[in-house]
């Protein structure tokens, strides 16, 4: 039994979720509080991956980052960085693809914080940073958890983009979803079954723990 697709998937999901927290918190903060009129344009862009099939993202990633093309060639020559058929490429694709799953729960977390609390903090002479780190984030833990779990889970379940820009390379881009596809195609149904059962068990466990942690609060795994 080859467990490497699981390790690889876990690693990809951890990297993606970590990076998404770094991008998602400032972005969601901005979306929640900015008074800019064209904010809705950014909102629409962030939500695009929810609507578009993964093939669109896969296609453009291939187009931009192939070493045969200017952008990919530039990265390859000067930074020795390839973003197609490599692990860093998958991380990039997953970050884009799971972005709405991070930003939307966080955004509703930010908007859910009573205005009075924010005003009080500022009246007490605390700056924005303190307001964010001491008042807002601690009071939206369930939003943070939801955002993290959704991003993580969505990355684990990713298939289409990885199939297009990954190239099904063992230990590099053969994540669990692709590995299962691979085994089915090779008619190794036993192996495909084992992988699938483990994945179902794991996903159920993750969601179970999340719901358990949030069991007393309503509106946990939704972001409306």
């Amino acid at each position, binding site marked *: 039994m080859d467990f490497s697709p699981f390790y690889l998937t876990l690693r990809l999901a951890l990297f993606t979720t970590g990076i998404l927290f770094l991008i998602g918190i400032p972005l969601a903060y901005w979306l929640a509080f900015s008074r800019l009129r064209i904010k809705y344009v950014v909102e629409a862009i962030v939500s695009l991956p929810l609507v578009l099939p993964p093939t669109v993202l896969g296609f453009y990633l291939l187009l931009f980052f192939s070493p045969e093309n200017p952008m990919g060639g530039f990265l390859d020559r000067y930074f020795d960085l390839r973003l197609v058929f490599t692990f860093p490429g998958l991380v990039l694709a997953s970050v884009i693809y799971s972005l709405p799953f991070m930003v939307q729960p966080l955004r509703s977390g930010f908007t859910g914080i009573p205005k009075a609390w924010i005003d009080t903090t500022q009246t007490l002479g605390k700056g924005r940073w303190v307001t964010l780190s001491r008042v807002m984030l601690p009071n939206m833990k369930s939003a943070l958890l939801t955002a993290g779990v959704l991003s993580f889970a969505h990355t684990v379940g990713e298939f289409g983009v990885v199939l297009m820009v990954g*190239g099904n390379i063992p230990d590099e881009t053969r994540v669990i979803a692709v590995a299962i596809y691979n085994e089915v195609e090779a008619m190794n149904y036993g192996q495909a079954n084992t992988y699938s059962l483990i994945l179902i068990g794991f996903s159920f466990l993750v969601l179970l723990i999340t719901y358990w942690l949030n069991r007393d609060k309503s509106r946990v795994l939704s972001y409306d």
Partner: protein
Amino acid sequence: MKCNGKAFLLLLGLMFFYQLTWAQKEKSVLVAAASDLKFALDSIILVFNQEKEITVKPIYGSSGKLYEQLSNRAPFHIFMSADVRYPELLAEKGLTASEIYVYGVGRLVLWSRKYDVKDLGMEAFQQPWVKKVAIANPDHAPYGKRAVESLAFYGWQEKLAPLLVKGENISQAAQFVATGAADLGMIALSLALSPTMKKYQSSYYLIPESSHSPLVQGAVVTSHGESSPESYAFMAFLKGEKAIGIFRYFGFSQPSN
């Protein structure tokens, strides 16, 4: 914030841990191989590993798709294509690092899970039980392209068009018929001869070669494999007697010239 900060540090720590454990992964030869090689190449690697301790990992797909990936510099060391034209195109792009080695000529067969179609031949398409016919995608899978040529040759193309289901590659087309999802398939002889398929149906109809252009297959070391002596070692093994024996067992004929 404290609690979240800790969780975040834990996340970073885990990422770091994985980075470390992953750095130790071994060097292995990655072979981008046409799907019709699925069983033949697995056997060859098994025999190869009795002689040398070099890890060879095959990645199967349609030759056209693999060629596309290699053109975009996918890090495969060896390319084994069901259509020698793809390695030739790769060589024209300067992305190969050896001569192209023709390891065999593939054949197309008609195969059904339930019925023995050996005596029916191309007339099998007329049977009332034929509702779906599986072929490989003719756009990028050589066996699919030859299947379409052959159908056109026998004048079946238009009548069959509504019944055709297309697999991503010849292995998926074979999987469609092997599961019974399709009633009849135009698949690779090398797959029909595999134990997995024989388990269901050991008989098949060999589609005459005169009905389509030949499936001359070729292997080449890619420019990515240039710096890896292991790749050349495996390539040399492919040219040896043992590998040729396995190719022959799976129905690949040696090129007349």
